[in-house]
């Protein structure tokens, strides 16, 4: 899958590119409005990550070009302005999703993959990992063919893990992914632990293996050891 990152902050681009490449994406970059125009008119991309504040022009003006040249591309807008106006305008103009800076890499990854699923680049809304099969249309998880009885929260956490498998995911990132910004009113994220305990239990009851590792209090990693 081919991704174009349009963003002027080179250090940020480097980090995102590196992260997405480990996820198996093919990543190209554009640092200015004109570079973006060039790339967009020359190549076809599956996913485009677009920062709205760019040297040389407003990112919103690029949306039209993207829709003209790359009709099928999933478009994810990034902005430092946590502005509702930008969000609404962007989505109205044809963007698929909106993420605010600063964001968690795992969150970006999850958004990209969800975009890809929705646009059926993989040809399916199903996600398969070893004994796990997730139907993202019906929000159901099967382990060895048996349906797991998960709450909505547990489902979202498990999906987040599987999408970001082999990556260390912080508890803050999980909390924000599931509950949104409002979760920052919490003193601590210990309550996530009880959700994870429940998920582990439910997987084990269905003879699923324990893929969840605790990483030194930073967060968790879902991977084969």
């Amino acid at each position, binding site marked *: 899958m081919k991704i174009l990152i349009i963003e002027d*902050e080179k*250090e*940020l681009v480097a*980090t*995102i590119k*590196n*992260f997405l490449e*480990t996820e198996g994406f093919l990543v190209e970059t554009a640092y200015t409005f004109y570079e973006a125009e060039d790339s967009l008119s020359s190549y076809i991309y599956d996913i485009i990550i677009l920062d709205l504040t760019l040297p040389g022009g407003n990112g919103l003006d690029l949306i039209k070009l993207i829709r003209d040249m790359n009709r099928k591309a999933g478009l994810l807008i990034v902005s*430092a*302005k*946590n*502005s*509702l*106006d930008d969000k609404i305008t962007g989505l109205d103009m044809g963007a698929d999703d909106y993420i*605010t*800076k*600063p*964001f*968690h*890499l*795992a969150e970006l990854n999850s958004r990209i993959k969800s975009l890809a699923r929705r646009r059926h680049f993989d040809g399916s809304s199903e996600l398969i990992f070893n004994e796990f099969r997730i139907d993202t249309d019906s929000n159901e998880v099967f382990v060895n063919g048996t349906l797991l009885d998960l709450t909505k929260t547990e489902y979202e956490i498990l999906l987040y893990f599987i999408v970001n498998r082999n*990556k*260390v995911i*912080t508890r*803050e990132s999980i909390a924000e992914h599931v*509950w*949104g*910004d*409002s*979760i*920052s*009113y*919490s*003193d601590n994220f*210990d*309550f*996530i632990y*009880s*959700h994870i305990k429940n998920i582990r239990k439910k997987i084990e009851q269905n003879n699923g293996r324990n893929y969840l590792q605790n*990483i*030194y*209090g*930073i*967060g968790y990693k879902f991977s084969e050891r």
Partner: protein
Amino acid sequence: MKLLQKTNKAYFLISATAFIIAGVTFYFVISFFFRDQLNEKLHHDIKNITRSIKRNGIIPNFYPFFEIKEVTGVPEQHTKAIDTLISDGFEKRKTLYRQVSLVTNINGKEYFIAARDTLLEEEDLLGVIAIVTGSLFVLLLLSLYFINRKLSLKIWQPFYKTLNELKEFSYDKPGFQLSSESDLFEFTELNKTLDKLTQKVISDYQTLKRFTEDASHEIQTPLAVIQSKLETLMQYPDLKKDQAEIIKSAYVYTLRISKLTQTLLLLTKIANDQFPEKREINLSEMLNEKINIFEGQISDKSIKVSKEIGPDCFLETNFFLAESLVINLIGNAVKHNIKTGTININLDKNHLEISNTGENLPVPSSKLFDRFYKTNKSSDSPGLGLAIVKEICKLNKWEIRYEYLDNLHTVIVDF
């Protein structure tokens, strides 16, 4: 005290004093001249009587006005004038008389001669003076009052207009301009100065606001870089425990700055009224839904939640702001709660009340809604949640208050 009352009071006191002094002086002056004239007349009478006795030997007697008696052994006496009380024989009451008398030798005989006149007129005079000065005083006061009132209303009118306009002044509403004009130098100066002052306040506030906004925006990008670098660092497979701990604390603090700048930005936006889009919001549903966000923390602390949420309480407001209000209030009640504490949520058409157990310390309610106010200085949160709630209430013209009763901290919003 109003200006008009104050000047009226001053006028009254000054003119009353002046009139009393003038009245008393007037009385003494008149009285002096009156007696002087009376004396002259009585002297004249005595002269006439003396002459008459000398010439004709007739001794007239018309008591008490003229009294002539032969006396012996009394030394000669020059004329002298005195006030004396004399009974005139008809009434028992004695009357005050002016008397001029002398003892003199006429044709070899000693005579005591006295001429008198009543001083009753003088009493009348006093009454007349009192009435005249009194009515003059009342007349003067009345005219002063009316002139003063008329002038005040007319002259001070631009002042009151300015005052009323200033009451409407708000530092976060640009375009404020004093409209009143006056042909009086003082008021023109006042308005000019006030105009300058208000413009300065407005522009300073705008600058400050823009600064907050720009600073928050500029901070977001470096923070995004730091955060993503730290998240990349975490991915290294052979990370040691101590290394992981360093990364973790750097990461947590980065997130904290990030949250802080975002919150400041939100506060600025609410103050800027950048949430114009309003619609009917079912607050009852929203409350029931948002409490679920905190379900994990509520069960962690074993908090007992009791809800009395009236069905279908609608509010006409911005969705995002209503959501922020609800989340902040519930979040606060959860966060500052104690283990096995309680939260009570009451909602009806006119007010929302959220109370929670917590530290047995009332919070000074004047400070509670201030930015960066924390009861617990070491707390991780920057203390902006209730400041946001207050801004949202201010924008929607809702009343918000805080009460502390029976160990319950209660925040009440009146719609």
